[in-house]
């Protein structure tokens, strides 16, 4: 932004932080290494550092990092058994991986000048579609064609059932969309708000302390949102899996 250094005026580019840029090349191809790739790799590295390394010399009385890892593990494991029951533990590695990746990406995105991977619907959409296909496949594998009866409302009058079937079918397809939009939208909205407030600071001079104070509050809220959204994405995955495993 060399040419845009106007002194004073409000100079907000709240969406600039979400631009995907190639790191080493000029053009954007299908396999280009971008800042998004970089931050995904950093997220994976943090996950390894948080879970693999401390657990290597695991002790009965945990060290500090080990107890962080065990706390997260126990939390998600309990959630999985609460929603899916004991047999749901087969899916625990998948669910835990999703949780850890989203949680770390969300929180790493709060580091100034970093890139929030989960603010892109391309990323969250892939994860939501993965969940969607997993759930659908498992449903058909477990119940065969009987899985379709998930959409067939027996309690309704016979004349209404075909229409209700369509409605239920659509609401099944709504899941991956709302699943991914919720996470990406939450991440993007908060970060854009932070940037807008930041633009007020140079424009207001000494009174710029007011937006700084507001930003501090919003940042705390964003930290909460980052954790809560990771949790919600994971628990929704469990709930959807539960529909496929135990049909009513």
């Amino acid at each position: 932004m060399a040419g845009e250094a106007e002194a004073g005026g409000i100079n907000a580019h709240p969406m600039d932080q979400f631009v995907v840029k190639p790191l080493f090349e000029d053009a954007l191809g299908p396999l280009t290494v971008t800042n998004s790739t970089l931050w995904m790799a950093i997220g994976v590295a943090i996950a390894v550092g948080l879970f693999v390394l401390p657990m290597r010399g695991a002790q009965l009385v945990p060290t500090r990092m080990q107890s962080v890892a065990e706390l997260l593990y126990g939390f998600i494991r309990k959630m999985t058994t609460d929603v899916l029951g004991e047999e749901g533990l087969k899916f625990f590695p998948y669910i835990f991986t999703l949780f850890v990746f989203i949680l770390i990406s969300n929180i790493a995105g709060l580091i100034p000048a970093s890139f929030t991977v989960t603010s892109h619907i391309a990323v969250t959409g892939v994860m939501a579609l993965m969940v969607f296909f997993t759930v659908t496949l498992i449903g058909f594998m477990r119940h065969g064609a009987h899985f379709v009866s998930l959409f067939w409302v027996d309690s309704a009058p016979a004349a209404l059932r075909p229409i209700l079937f369509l409605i239920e079918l659509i609401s099944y397809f709504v899941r991956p969309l709302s699943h991914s939009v919720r996470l990406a939208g939450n991440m993007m909205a908060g970060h854009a708000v932070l940037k807008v407030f930041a633009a007020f600071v140079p424009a207001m001079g000494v009174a710029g302390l007011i937006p700084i104070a507001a930003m501090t509050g919003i940042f705390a809220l964003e930290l909460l949102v980052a954790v809560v959204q990771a949790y919600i994405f994971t628990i929704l995955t469990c709930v959807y899996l539960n529909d496929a495993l135990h049909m009513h």
Partner: protein
Amino acid sequence: MPTDAERPPSLEEIDSRLAAIRKRRKAKPAGRGAAKWQGAELAWRMVIDLTAGIAVGLTIGWGLDSLFGTMPLFMVVFVLLGFAAGVSIMLRSAEDQRRKALRRAEAEAAAAGGTDETGAAAPRDEGR
């Protein structure tokens, strides 16, 4: 000769002190502050589900129309169906919320009746 302050506390004293601490711990996690945020989350979820329903209906209708060449017909029908789907999801999540609140009230009543449970009640699932 030991004074009052030096005398080791009796078991009953320790017991009552422990019970007081447990009670204080238990009362806290189920604060109303979290419930307020949860309400906002619920509203946010309902709005997304509603719009997503319409969007999915629109897409399906559009796809069918361009397949059969009957441009506005299926789009109109499926937008309405998508809206209905969004409303049904919304109603279902409202129903879930109501049932959860009921269950929580029951659990609280049970906890008030039966004392001496170690640890606070685990927070139930907030998603969905």
